[in-house]
């Protein structure tokens, strides 16, 4: 019997993997992928919790909304990475420390 807990565990695992990718990867594309993973983990939670809203399906609606947003965000993110590459000739975040004072 698959319960809500299993969903939440899977979601947590995906979130952690995404988090790991964001913190540790040496490639901006992979970081973007990590971000997508974390968004998807959150969407999974929306969907899982929507079983308690059988009338409006608010969770599922919000999940759809989030997927669209995530797609737009990825587009923006890829555009930024492209510009970063043009500017720095690299996409390794280690070599970008313009944020430092």
């Amino acid at each position, binding site marked *: 019997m698959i319960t809500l807990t299993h969903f939440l565990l899977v979601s947590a695992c995906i979130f952690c993997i995404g*988090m790991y990718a*964001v*913190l*540790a990867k040496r490639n901006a594309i992979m*970081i973007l992928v990590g971000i997508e993973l974390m968004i998807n983990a959150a969407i999974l939670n929306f969907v899982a919790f929507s079983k308690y809203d059988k009338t409006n399906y608010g969770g599922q609606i919000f999940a759809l909304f989030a997927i669209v947003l995530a797609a737009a965000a990825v587009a923006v993110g890829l555009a930024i990475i492209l510009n970063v590459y043009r500017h720095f000739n690299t996409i390794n*975040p*280690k070599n*970008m*420390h*313009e*944020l*430092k*004072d």
Partner: protein
Amino acid sequence: MNELLPISPINASVLIALLPFLAFLIQAVLGKTQTSGNISLVAIILSTTLSLFWVFPAVWNHDQQTLKLVWFVIGEYDLNVGVLLNNLTVLMQLIVCIIALPVHIYSKAYMKADPGLHRYWMFLSLFCFAMLSLTISINLFQSYIFWELVGFASYLLIGYWFTKDSAVQANKKAFLVNRIGDIGFLIGIALIYSHVGTLDLTMLFGPSGVFNPSSLEHGQSLVIDTDASWRTWAGICFFLGAMAKSAQFPLHIWLPDAMEGPTSVSSLIHAATMVAAGVFLLCTIFPLFNATVLLLIAIIGTLTAISGAIFALGQQDIKKILAFSTISQLGFMMVGVGIGAWDSAMFHLGTHAFFKCLLFLCAGAVIHEMAHLKKHRNLEFDPQNLRNMGGLRKYMPKTFLCMSIASLALAGFPLTAGYLSKDSIVVGAFEWGAYHGGWHMIIPITLIIVSILTAFYIGRLIWKAFFGNFRFADLLNTDHTMREAPVLMLAPMIFLALCCFAPAFSLQPLDYHASWLMQGLHVQTAYPAIPSAHLYIPVILSIGAIVSWFIGWKWYTQREYPFSTGNKLVQLANNQFYLNEFNEVIFVNSIKRLSGFLYFVDRKVVDGLTYLFTNLIQSIARAVNWLDKNVIDGLVNMVANSTYYLGHLVRHVQNGQLQGYLGFALTVLILGFLYLIIK
């Protein structure tokens, strides 16, 4: 003469003194171009003319004349400078002029072609100026100024050949010894001023001066007690000044060394300008002296007379003999002052000036010829040494004649001027000794012995230089021979020789009381005259002189000399009783040791204290420096360093790495959750 040129004696006497000074200034300005000496010569001729025809006849045996000008005022005391003309001062001024004139003429020939001639004439004029001014000073302080100038000018002239080491030593010695006397003079002036309050000669020693015994009768309010101890001290101090200037034993040591100067300068120093100043000073301030000081003067004078005569016996240098004879004759003058007969002292000063100047000029002529021979033949010998002379009367008969006349005068032979003046002193001393009795008789007896010794040593000089055989006779030939002195040198000598005869001073050549000089200066002495002494003392002296000359002739021309060359007594006299060596050991060395000790004290104690202090301060400074560096700076540095370290610790957070920021934020978030969970 006054109709020719209406000039007052005061102005004329000032002019007499200033003319040589003017000559000195002109020559100082013109410098090396002025070597002829004509300026000095003209100045001294004018001075002599003025002195002889305007000043002397107008003042001699007339009332004294004075001129006083206020120089400066200190408080209520105003210091006067001015001119004092009386018998004594005009006589002295005249003597200086009349001696300086022949010396100037003689120098023109004698000093010819000397490389430093412009200096010679300059210094000579300065010397004359100083002495001529000293004679007419009205104020003791003014006298002191010119006294010092005389000393300074003589220093310059003695050291005239300054490239010669001996000349430099000699003028240094003369200067230093004279300093001792000058201190005495200065202390004397201070004593008089502090007790009487004036330095004016007329107010002190004039006819109504505070020191004059006759002023008691004039009811003078301020009369000084004769036996006051300060008066004795002041007298001794002034005498000390005169001792150094007039070369009295034991301060005579500078005079023989002063022979390093040119001979013409020696003659001037010995005759009129330098050594006469001391005797003149004592005559000027004579009323100051009380019985104690006078006795001291007489004793020192006698000592000087006998020691000078004995030293003269052993000398080989022709100028040294004359130098010691001057010392001896100055001793006579001092005795004259000491027995109260300062008129005799002045008389002897006057006659001595002529014959001593002449002796030096003749010696100069001889040395001149000897030096010529030495240069011409490239010989190596001392041109002043008597041993190298002999038989010169054949070559230089006129010089010989002049020197003989001067020697007769020095020996006090009858009909010469020296006879009159020397007898006046010896007879005076005899009368004085007889009046006081007892051991006082030693002084006249010593003087008689000295007179005979004088005759002997001057005879020795004549015999050795002018008789016998000339040592270099075989070197003389037709193209170079010993010649008579040139006429420029001979003329002054002949003039002085004429002045050596008695008629120049007295028309009655055997009685010194008849001399115009003695009558003009006449001094009333306390002791009675002894008529018989006037007869037998001159007779004893003349016979003694003749006998001594005969002995000298036997010894020196007949080669019957009784002493071996190394005779102890002769050596002793030649070395002046080792007086210079004595001074060297006692005074010079002890002063050297003292200064060495003081140097040591200075180096070790005074400098040591300074070093100690320095080191102390340095160590304190070092300690403070350490404290400042390590404690005060340490505290500040500690604060700074710890802040830095803290910042260093957290600076890695802000590294500009996006992932680092995210990781850090995540950590803090987790820590926050943990905190919330644990709480």
